[in-house]
């Protein structure tokens, strides 16, 4: 799985959650920029887990406590890449 496809697939998931076109999602955008709230985030993480068959460590009560960085689209892409690398 190449890096660009991971990025495209993550952007595809976030775009669908945000009801945007993938082309409207930029790497430096935050979840706030995308209009994804805490419930939307939990759904997005579920979609990422299903898409990549990985387990994402995330507790909605302490989003900062997790290694899974959700501060921007790029951070989420990197976090997914790390989880995939750990799994390989």
């Amino acid at each position: 799985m190449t890096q660009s496809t991971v990025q495209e697939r993550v952007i595809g998931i976030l775009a669908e959650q945000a009801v945007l076109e993938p082309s409207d999602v930029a790497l430096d955008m935050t979840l706030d920029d995308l209009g994804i709230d805490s419930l939307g985030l939990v759904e997005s993480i579920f979609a990422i887990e299903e898409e990549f068959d990985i387990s994402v460590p995330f507790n909605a009560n302490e989003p900062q406590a997790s290694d899974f960085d959700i501060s921007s689209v790029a951070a989420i892409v990197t976090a997914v890449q790390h989880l995939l690398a750990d799994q390989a």
Partner: protein
Amino acid sequence: MTGRGHRVVITGAGTINPLGTDVPGTLEAMREGRCGIGPLDIRDVDRLSVKIGGQVRDYDEAAHFNRQQIALYDRFTQFTLLAAREAIGQAGLEFTGALADQSGVVFGTSGGGLNTQDENYRAVYEEGKNRVHPFIVPKLMNNAAASHVSMEWNLRGPAFTVATACASSNHAMGQAFQMVRSGLAPVMVTGGSESMLCFGGVKAWEGLRVMSKDACRPFSLNRNGMVQGEGAAVFVFEELDHAKRRGAQVLAEVVGFAMTSDASDIVTPSKQGAARAIAGAIRDARVNPDEVCYINAHGTGTAANDKTECAAVADVFGHHADALMISSTKSMHGHLIGGTGAVELLACIMALRDGVIAPTIGYEEPDPECALDVVPNVAREARVEVALSNAFAFGGLNAVLALRRFPT
């Protein structure tokens, strides 16, 4: 009769929950700040990411019920019947004649016979069986507990079940209160029960990502979510004059109830919705807000609930919010979902009758957004005139009860 109708008192209480198999045992655990939460002992726990819960441990159904009863009683019904036995036994009531015809049952539960559903879905889907036991439907239905209590004690008046997720018990007890107050029933057996600690029950909650993997720490800055519990509590709500005529012992008086709907979000709580319910219960009770000394909080230990609940309390009480005590006993018994308000009402009775405030255990770090007196870690003695019990459910449904000390 007062302006609003008859006065309503509690003349019996019973329970089985992670802290104890009866009321005295449970109150002793609450006084000592004991934790009933521990490693889950259920089938397929290795496939769960949340592996803790407030389970009723060392429970042997065969010690309480015969084979025919067990075929009909899901775990939530068994818990209800055991709690009802203690409550109705304490009240010393026998339901015959007109009293039986007029008295009823209203219970709260959210999942009903979820264990029965889980076991039988497993049988037909996972194990490929094509046949299930003939009584699965009457065993799993949400009204099973209410019906079996009505049958066992001959309660022939209004009987039904309320399902409003985490507020089910408070909504049920609110109905019971209003029915006795209005003169519709002289006695209502009420409370709630839950038994969701099965693989499917916990797995569904895991999905929300609001569960803690280590402890329930309400109001503490380092809280990281809720922990599920199971069990039941049952109360006898009785019209005061009826109780007096037969010389019944009164545990506390129920003086107010209010319910509101946030009408905003299916899971995110609203400060306004909670505040309206708290203020409504105080108004309904016709007490001065300053008389409220203790609130048994909804206090789930999630980031969202606890700060929202504290903000609602601050809004309603103003300066008095800093003088009153508010604790969450979920830190000890976990979140019993549809049964939680019932078990938590025991803490209110202890505060009013015994003058002991149950603590919020697991409290480690102050949270500036929960800057109230949460009775951290150690129980406290205090004379309490009026106590409230909060319940705020998913779906934005809020139900608050107000109780007053009954002079002995």
